[in-house]
């Protein structure tokens, strides 16, 4: 073990001096995570938009109250911030002052129009600089109005068959029920597969685990570099067990992975306000993820002939696993074959484990994901160890 640690310490010194591990292990994932967060964060998750809406209720009816209550429920769920305005002028002032992104205008006569089967309009007035927020506001209104129309149509059909008139009270009662109105924004009662990380944590974790495989590669391909540079012969001629050389490289890979992930967890928490979850659960996920990366990249090193070849193949594998594992976009949510294949990657389990830890879940919530990652780590690790030993015995 002493010799393995000596070799790992020597390699760590070399990696620190050439700075490549720092760039790929810390700088690149940190910068990319931040860029992705800025560019795609709100759009990817629907969060972090800070939707600030106004509502002008000129109708003051059952229908308009029903719509207002839907928006208030959304506010309670932290989906948006709602401000009531007495009239259009006040709302316009707030919009021009940048206090709100858009406002809903419920014109007088809306209720009457709905009750008499005539068309009513919910007007959306948005800030030209906040097109996404305005679009989302329109979507709220469309969902509400389509729910009301569906209810009217159903009742109207029944009424025609019965030869009776539509009961306006019945329409009003339906429109007061958000579920009947077709609003499906509610985020409560999420299942494990639909739990989502917030944007900053998603991209921080995604980039961290994606680049982890490149970082770990520095360690395991070191064996091939020693062979290329002639120093492997000297190591193997020394009075140390051959397994020490392999173990030294594995220890370095593990150390680089742990250092990289730890720095990224801390840095993204401080700089991007990422919320990783219970520290013990995160630590277990990180250790398991690093072990899996060592195992998989060790497998690449055990079959590659040159460090350059290992680098190329390793990069391809890291990118494919990263994409499939949902580090750039949530593959699991796409359904179909991809959603199943994603769980062949440690990346997907890592992200799933973090999702389980979200919403203040205890560290034990990550254990199933940790177990799955460890299965991948042990199976690939044992295989790569066997192949490397056979290779060194030649």
């Amino acid at each position: 073990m002493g010799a393995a640690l000596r070799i790992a310490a020597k390699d760590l010194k070399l990696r620190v001096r050439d700075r490549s591990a720092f760039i790929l292990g810390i700088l690149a994932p940190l910068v990319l995570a931040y860029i992705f967060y800025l560019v795609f964060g709100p759009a990817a998750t629907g969060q972090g938009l800070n939707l600030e809406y106004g509502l002008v209720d000129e109708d003051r009816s059952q229908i308009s109250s029903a719509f207002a209550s839907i928006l208030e429920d959304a506010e309670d769920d932290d989906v948006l911030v709602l401000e009531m305005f007495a009239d259009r002028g006040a709302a316009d002032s707030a919009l021009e002052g940048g206090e709100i992104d858009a406002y809903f205008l419920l014109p007088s006569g809306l209720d009457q129009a709905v009750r008499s089967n005539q068309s009513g309009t919910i007007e959306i007035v948005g800030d030209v600089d906040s097109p996404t927020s305005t679009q989302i506001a329109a979507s709220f209104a469309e969902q509400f109005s389509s729910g009301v129309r569906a209810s009217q149509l159903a009742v109207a059909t029944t009424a025609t068959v019965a030869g009776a008139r539509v009961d306006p009270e019945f329409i009003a009662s339906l429109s007061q029920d958000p579920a009947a109105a077709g609003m499906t924004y509610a985020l409560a009662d999420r299942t494990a597969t639909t739990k989502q990380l917030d944007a900053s944590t998603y991209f921080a974790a995604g980039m961290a685990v994606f680049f982890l495989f490149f970082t770990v590669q520095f360690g395991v391909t070191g064996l091939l570099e020693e062979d290329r540079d002639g120093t492997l012969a000297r190591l193997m001629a020394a009075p140390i067990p051959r397994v020490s050389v392999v173990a030294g490289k594995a220890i370095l890979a593990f150390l680089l992975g742990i250092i990289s992930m730890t720095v990224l967890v801390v840095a993204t928490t401080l700089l991007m306000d990422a919320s990783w979850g219970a520290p013990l659960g995160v630590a277990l996920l990180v250790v398991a993820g690093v072990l899996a990366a060592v195992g998989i990249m060790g497998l690449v090193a055990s079959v590659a002939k040159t460090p350059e070849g290992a680098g190329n193949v390793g990069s391809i594998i890291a990118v494919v696993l990263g994409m499939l594992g949902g580090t750039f976009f949530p593959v699991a949510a796409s359904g179909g074959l991809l959603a199943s294949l994603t769980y062949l990657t440690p990346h997907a389990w890592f992200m799933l484990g973090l999702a389980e830890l979200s919403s203040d879940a205890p560290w034990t919530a990550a254990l199933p994901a940790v177990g799955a990652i460890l299965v991948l780590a042990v199976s690939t690790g044992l295989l790569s160890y066997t192949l490397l030993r056979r290779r060194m015995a030649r």
Partner: protein
Amino acid sequence: MKRFGDLTAVDGVSLTIAQGETFGLLGPNGAGKTTTISMICGLLAPDQGSVTVTGQEISTKSTKGRSEIGLVPQDLAIYPDLTGEENLRFFGHLYGMTGGALDSRVDEVLDVIGLADRRDDQTKEYSGGMKRRLNIGIGLLHEPQLLVLDEPTVGVDPQSRNAILESVESLSREGMAVLYTTHYMEEAERLCDRVAIIDEGVVQAQGTRRELVSMVGEKDRVAMSASGNLVEAAQALRGIEGVTDASASDHRIDVLATDASSILPQLLATVTSSGGSITGVEVEEPNLEAVFLHLTGKALRD
């Protein structure tokens, strides 16, 4: 014996090296020298046969006896981003050296290889010759009983080459057994007490230079510039034991002998006593190149 697939890289190599002896393994590129020393150092497992150093069998599966061997690989086996001292310390640790013993030995070796003043520089800043010297220094850091040098002067400038050869001579004088592989005949002749000539994985012959030369019937040639009665002198020279032929021409006598240097005084005295006057002498001993050519039918650098 060592085979790689259908290729027999080394076959029937049997060598014994005594303490304080410098043994040369002379052969062209691809002759099997590196394979042989890889087996000696425990890097490769022989398909047949064994290697013993100071009574301990060397194996790829065991670390036993490894610390008795110092390997200087043909390619530079140093870390360019470590300093000279860090390189030495790292390998010293692997050989179990620690504390004050390691400190003082590192200082000693840096002095021996002439890098004491560059000890804190990363080796990527070193010249080619300095790297070669450090490569050797690492091999002898742990004071092995057997130092194995695999073509240590390949690609080295003449000045550094001479420094390396002097180091090997010095180590041999200090009692270290040295196994030196080369395809440079001059180096083998200068350094080695005994030489094995290897070609196509087979040792063609081994012994001292003199033994190898006599084995193939090559003679020393002595050319004397002289005046006087040279015909009579040549006739007298033919009577000396060890002289196989002597001939006279204008102002010159050519003598063939088995060991010219040992009978040279007798040759000079005989010419003088026969009425000749000597103005110059050249002794040409047959070299290992000629022996190699005789044994294999090809030149060393083929």
